[in-house]
C-alpha cells in the first residue's frame, strides 16, 4: 500500500511537470512555430500602441530572445522563489509562488487566483453534494424499478439535463426563479461565506441547482447502468440466498459495487470544476476561476491565462491522484504491490 501511494505521488509530480511544460509551450513555443517572433509576443505585454523600439526593448527584458528552455526554467524558478520583472518604468516584484505577472493590471497572478478560488470551491462543492445525492438516488431507484413510469420519467428528465447547456438552463433559471419569482439571488450577487453564510447560501443556490442539474442527469444514467449490471452479478444472488433484506442486497451489495466506476468519473469532473466552472460562473457572474480565465482570455492577458490553466491542470491531477488512492480503499483487489 505504501509503495502504491509513493508510486502514485511520483507519477502525479511528473505529470504536473509535463502539464506545465505543455502549457508553457502552447503560449510561448507554438506561436513561434507558426511564425510568431519575440516581438509579436512582447506586443501583448505593452499594448498595440507601443513603438517598435519599445517592443524590442520589452521583448529583450522579458527574455523572449533566449532559448525556450531557459525561459521555461526561469518561469518554473519563479514559482518556487519568485521573480522580478523590469519593464522600463519600474521594477515589479512577483513574490513566490510566482505564477506570472500581469502587465495589464500590474499585479502578480497568484494572489488573484487565491482570491478567486473560494468562489469556485463553494460552487463546486455545493453542486457536487447536490448532484451526488440526486444522481445516485435517481439512478438507483430507476435501476430497481426498471421500465416503470418512475424510471421513464427520471430518464426523460435526465436526457434533458444532459442535453441542455448551462447557458440555457442558467438563463431560464435566472429569469424564472430570480427575476420573476424572486426566490433566488440575482446574477452577480456573490457574498463570501466568511462575510455572511446566509447570503452566501442564497447567492449560490441557483448556480448550484443549475450546475447540479446537468451533472446529476449524467450521474443518474451512470448509476442506473452500473446498478443494472451489478444486480445481475452472481454475488447479488448469493446475498439474496443468505436471506438478506432486499434493501441490504441493493445498497450494501449492489450500489457498493456500482459506485466504484462512478468514483473515477466524479474525481475527474470535480477536478475539472475546481479549475473553474466557466459557463456557470459566466452566466451567474460569479467571480471564480472560470470567470477569471474568460476575462483573461478576452483581455489577451497571457500570464493570467497561463496561471489559471496551470492551476486547473493542478486540480485535475490532484483529483486523479485522490481517486487512485481512494480506489485502493474502495476496491480491495487494487491493493497489490
Amino acid at each position: 500500500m505504501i509503495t502504491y501511494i509513493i508510486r502514485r505521488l511520483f507519477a502525479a509530480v511528473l505529470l504536473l511537470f509535463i502539464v506545465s511544460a505543455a502549457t508553457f509551450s502552447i503560449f510561448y513555443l507554438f506561436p513561434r512555430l507558426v511564425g510568431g517572433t519575440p516581438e509579436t509576443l512582447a506586443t501583448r505585454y505593452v499594448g498595440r500602441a507601443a513603438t517598435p523600439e519599445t517592443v524590442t526593448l520589452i521583448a529583450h527584458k522579458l527574455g523572449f530572445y533566449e532559448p525556450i528552455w531557459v525561459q521555461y526554467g526561469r518561469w518554473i524558478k519563479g514559482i518556487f522563489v519568485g521573480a522580478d520583472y523590469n519593464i522600463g518604468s519600474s521594477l515589479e516584484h512577483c513574490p513566490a509562488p510566482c505564477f506570472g505577472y500581469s502587465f495589464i493590471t500590474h499585479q502578480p497572478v497568484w494572489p488573484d487566483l487565491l482570491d478567486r478560488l473560494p468562489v469556485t470551491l463553494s460552487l463546486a462543492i455545493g453542486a457536487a453534494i447536490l448532484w451526488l445525492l440526486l444522481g445516485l438516488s435517481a439512478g438507483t431507484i430507476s435501476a430497481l424499478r426498471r421500465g416503470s413510469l418512475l424510471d421513464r420519467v427520471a430518464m426523460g428528465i435526465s436526457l434533458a439535463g444532459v442535453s441542455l447547456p448551462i447557458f440555457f438552463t442558467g438563463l431560464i433559471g435566472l429569469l424564472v426563479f430570480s427575476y420573476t419569482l424572486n426566490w433566488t439571488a440575482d446574477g452577480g450577487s456573490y457574498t463570501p461565506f466568511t462575510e455572511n453564510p446566509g447570503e452566501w447560501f442564497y447567492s449560490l443556490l441557483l448556480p448550484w441547482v443549475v450546475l447540479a442539474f446537468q451533472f446529476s442527469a449524467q450521474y443518474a444514467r451512470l448509476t442506473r447502468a452500473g446498478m443494472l449490471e451489478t444486480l445481475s452479478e452472481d454475488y447479488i444472488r448469493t446475498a439474496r440466498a443468505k436471506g438478506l433484506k432486499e434493501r441490504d442486497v441493493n445498497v450494501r451489495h449492489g450500489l457498493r459495487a456500482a459506485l466504484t466506476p462512478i468514483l473515477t468519473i466524479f474525481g475527474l469532473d470535480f477536478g475539472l470544476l475546481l479549475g473553474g466552472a466557466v459557463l456557470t460562473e459566466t452566466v451567474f457572474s460569479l467571480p471564480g476561476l472560470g470567470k477569471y480565465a474568460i476575462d483573461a482570455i478576452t483581455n489577451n492577458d497571457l500570464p493570467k491565462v497561463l496561471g489559471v490553466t496551470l492551476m486547473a491542470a493542478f486540480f485535475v491531477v490532484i483529483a486523479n491522484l485522490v481517486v487512485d488512492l481512494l480506489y485502493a480503499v474502495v476496491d480491495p483487489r487494487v491493493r497489490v504491490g
Partner: protein
Amino acid sequence: MTDQTQPFLEVKDLKIHFPTDDGVVKSVDGLTFSVERGKTLGIVGESGSGKSVTSLGIMGLYNKRNSKISGQIWLDGDDVVSSDDETVRKLRGNKMSMIFQDPLSSMHPYYTVGQQIVEAYRVHHSVSKSVARKHAVDMLGRVGIPQPDRRVDDYPHQFSGGMRQRAMIAMSLVNDPQLLIADEPTTALDVTVQAQILDLMHDLQSEFNSALIVITHDLGVVAELADDVLVMYGGRCIEFADATTIFDRPEHPYTWGLLGSMPRMDRPQIDRLVPIPGLPPSLINLPTGCSFHPRCQFEPRTGGLGSTTMPELSPAGGSKHLVRCHIPTGERQRIWSDEVKPRLEA
C-alpha cells in the same frame, strides 16, 4: 414436524414458467420429489434441463413479477410457493441454504470472507459482530481452511479456487441449515480439489444431519454423494431411483445415454465416449409426445406413441423406481442388459 420419517423437503407438482416475448419458457413443468434429513438427492441433467431453476425455485429466489410458479414446496411445514416474501426470506440462508457453482463470482469482491460470513450469520441471529466473527472463524476451521483466524480477514480473490469453495460452504453452513442445495459445487474446480470438496460436503452432511440436494451434470459427483437420483429432461423428471439402481439397472434411454457419455475408471477403456445425438430441446417449444423422442434411438419400439403422447412417470424395476417411458418396463430391462450395458462395457 421434524420427524425423521417425515421428508424435510417435499416438492409437489412444481411448475416454474417464464413468460417471454417469444413464448412461455417452461423451465420446470410438474416436478415432484422429496428429501429426508441426512439424505442426499442428486438432480442430474444436461444444461437447460431445469435443474438450476428448480434449486433457485426452492430457495424462493424467483421474482413473482417475471415468473409464474405453481405447485407446492413444503419445507419443514412452510410452503415456499404460497408464503409471503418476508417468511421465505427468513427461511433462506437459515433453514435452507445454497452453494453456488463459481465461488469467485458468487462472493462479493469488496468484502472480506469473514465479513460475508458474519453478515450471513447476523441476518438470522441478533448477536454482536465479535460473536459472529468467532462463529465465522470456527466455521472456516471446520471446512478445513488453515489458520482461519488469519484468513478470515482475507478477500475472496486472495483465496485459491478450492479454498473459496470451502469458504462458500462455510458461509452456507454458518446458520446450521437443515437443507443444503449445492448447484454444480465442483464444476469450476480442479479435479483434485473436486474430490476434496465432495469429501468435505459428505462429512459435513453427516455431521449436521441435513438434507442435501446436489445439482450436477457430472454423474461422478452423484455416484460419490447421492442416495437417490432424479434425472431431469426438458423440465420434467424422466427417471427417479436410488443411486445403485440408476447406475446398475437404469431404465430410461436418456439415462443410458448419460451413462454412455461418462468416462469411467472402473470399466475397461472403450474407444470413444458415446454422446447423446442432438441437442436439448427448446423449453418454449417442447417436442410433442415424449420430449426425448427425437433423440431416442429406441423410439421405433414405442409403436408410434413416442411422437404423440407424453408418457406418465410410472413404477419400474427397482424399489421406488420411477421412469417416464412408453417402452414397457420388462422390455427396457432386457434392452439394458442385452443391448446397452454390453456396449458400454465392451
